[in-house]
């Protein structure tokens, strides 16, 4: 086993592939946070009054709060005054109208990341709203979507062009008082994506956003809002990579989903931010609030996530099942290697009658990684006949890693039914020997076994994302056996 372990350690210790840095002229605020900074952000973005007021309320509320201390993660204190709260590529000032106007350096960055916008436009049929640092610089397929009445644009643009929609829905699922990181985001969010699907429209393509953090010491505060009106359907993909960095970077995003009557939203994430080096130095701190509300009857929301990056992952994509017969799903693969920490899971809040939720969580721990599943299933008094099924599986690679499962269950109606299953297993020496005795290398064998372990979740991903996710596991996960 020793020989294998050594070989696998080499694989694990492979350098982060997306660790490069792009030199762009950036327009960055000096460090620190106060009301003047928030006014400045709002002014730079030419926001209407209501938006500034909302930010200020959030900021004042945030000042009264403290960082949550209930999770399993550990990190040195974050100095919120040492962060710059706004950074945008300078070219933004002229507002690029097409790819031709976009900074070529930026386009090259995306190419290195495997996001060739032009090609995607033609080949993949994916509309990409590319977020570089804090400002959207390119949006494709807009015209085609526009014909259907679909609005897909940067958050800033939505605030300017569709203030009534933003005003109606912003904070309606994640209020600015929700939690420490959501409040901070509400005060200082820089940009993000906005999507509105009108009644009866089936969005004909996967909507996609690539996030990337690039400026040193710049916190990234994305805000995403997706509204699926009655009888509509949308599938949204979010994928991220980030360049290598010495300093820890704070990321506190908020995503709100709203599904009205008979509407369906599928939201998929592949998260591959810089996880820090082998010794646990650097890496992204990822504190994310993601929540969807099945507001209308028979509405459906599903979250699918593949989390392989970040030094710290703290996120609980949740669904509030308000409408009768609404359905919520959560499918997750979370991998922690080296000194990565993940505390992730979901909340399914059943309010409506006959609501259904399904949770499948696959945690993989390697190296010194710590992986916790934390899930709440709540059946309110009104949730007559509601059902939940949860399955949490943990896979351990090596003997220095850890896996935890924290299921919280609250049931207030006797007709509601909750089922929870959990397993923990170690990647089998027998399985490895079997595969290797068929000529497969150790890395291919581990990759195959782990991909098999995650299969139920990958099946939920759109095809091109499933392939990407498998590759990602192939790179970041080949390793460490006990």
């Amino acid at each position: 086993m020793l020989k294998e372990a050594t070989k696998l350690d080499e694989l694990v210790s492979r350098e982060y592939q997306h660790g490069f840095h792009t030199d762009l002229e950036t327009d960055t605020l000096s460090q620190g946070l106060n009301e003047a900074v928030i006014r400045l952000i709002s002014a730079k973005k030419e926001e209407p009054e209501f938006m500034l007021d909302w930010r200020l309320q959030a900021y004042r509320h945030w000042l009264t709060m403290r960082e949550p201390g209930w999770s399993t993660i550990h990190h040195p204190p974050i100095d919120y005054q040492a962060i710059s709260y706004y950074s945008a590529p300078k070219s933004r000032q002229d507002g690029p109208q097409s790819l031709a106007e976009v900074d070529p350096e930026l386009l090259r960055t995306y190419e290195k990341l495997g996001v060739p916008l032009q090609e995607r436009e033609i080949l993949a049929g994916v509309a990409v709203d590319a977020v570089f640092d804090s400002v959207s610089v390119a949006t494709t397929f807009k015209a085609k979507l526009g014909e259907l009445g679909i609005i897909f644009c940067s958050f800033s643009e939505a605030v300017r062009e569709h203030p009534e929609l933003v005003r109606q829905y912003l904070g309606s699922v994640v209020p600015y008082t929700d939690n420490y990181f959501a409040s901070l985001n509400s005060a200082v969010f820089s940009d993000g994506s906005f999507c509105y699907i009108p009644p009866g429209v089936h969005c004909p393509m996967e909507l996609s956003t690539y996030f990337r953090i690039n400026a040193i010491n710049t916190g990234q505060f994305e805000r995403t809002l997706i509204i699926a009106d009655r009888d509509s359907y949308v599938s949204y993909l979010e994928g991220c990579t980030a360049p290598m960095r010495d300093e820890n970077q704070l990321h506190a995003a908020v995503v709100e989903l709203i599904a009205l009557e008979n509407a369906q939203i599928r939201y998929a994430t592949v998260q591959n931010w810089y996880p820090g080096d082998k010794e646990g130095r650097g890496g992204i701190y990822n504190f994310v609030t993601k929540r969807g509300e099945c507001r209308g009857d028979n509405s459906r929301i599903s979250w699918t996530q593949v989390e392989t990056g970040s030094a710290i992952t703290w996120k609980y994509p949740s669904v509030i099942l308000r409408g009768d017969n609404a359905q919520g799903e959560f499918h997750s693969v979370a991998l922690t290697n080296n000194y990565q920490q993940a505390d992730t899971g979901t909340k399914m809040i059943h309010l409506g009658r006959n609501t259904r939720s399904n949770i499948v969580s696959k945690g993989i721990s390697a190296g010194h990684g710590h992986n916790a599943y934390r899930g709440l299933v709540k059946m309110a008094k009104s949730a007559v006949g509601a059902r939940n099924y949860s399955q949490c599986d943990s896979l351990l690679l090596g003997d220095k890693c850890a896996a935890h499962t924290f299921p919280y269950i609250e049931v207030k109606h006797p007709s509601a039914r909750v089922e929870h299953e959990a397993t923990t297993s170690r990647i089998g020496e027998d399985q490895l020997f079997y595969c290797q005795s068929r000529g497969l290398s150790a890395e291919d064998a581990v990759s195959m076994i782990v991909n098999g372990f995650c299969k139920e979740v990958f099946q939920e991903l759109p095809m091109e994302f499933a392939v990407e996710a498998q590759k990602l596991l192939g790179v970041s996960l080949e390793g460490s056996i006990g």
Partner: protein
Amino acid sequence: MLDIRNLHVSVDGKPILKGLDLSVKAGEVHAIMGPNGSGKSTLAHVLAGREGYVVSSGEILYQGSNLLELNVEERAQQGILLAFQYPVEIPGVANVYFLKAALNALRRHRGLPELDAIDFLALIRNKLKQMEMDESLLYRPVNQGFSGGEKKRNEILQMVLLEPTLALLDESDSGLDIDALKVVAAGINGLRSPQRAIVLVTHYQRLLDYVVPDKVHVLADGRIARSGGRELAIELERTGYGTPADHPGRQAATP
């Protein structure tokens, strides 16, 4: 093809093989027989390169080179294939995917182009028919929910697919009904070739009614105690192994 000289192997500090000698030539079929705990499975696993089997002395030459210098996958790439007594399950991995990955790993090593899904499917369907296996077994997770007989057939299926130079079969006959045994035996007989050697590890001589060996060896207490031809197996069937391990009360080592 295979020369084992004075092989000593221990598992968890406990000596299992104690000076084993064995020589197998290309084109031959050898049967290794013996009571439980005599070291039969240990021999098969040492040849395949399993971790935890410590060779304290002796040597194994395979095609003239030191086999012990090769790791597990290198041995497989050099044409050694072990059919497991207890094949493991790999949840979530479709059998067809596993088989294709294994074949392509070997083809890569041999400098052959990898087979795509269509060519592979044509090939494997043919082999399935030969093993009288249902195609649905291709799409189930590797060995998961397979019956004992299906697992054994799936092992022989890998043999006929991967075409090893040295085929090691660890109790491939155990737990099979007579019909399944005939199919497995036919699969093994189909492997016989002047370029290939086959080593059958078996507790019962039943399999040898269908796969007639060139040589039969009796393993007892970590050594080859007797060697002979087909008639030795038949004699054993009549008289038993006659070693202390067969007597009740004596604890058998787990291979």
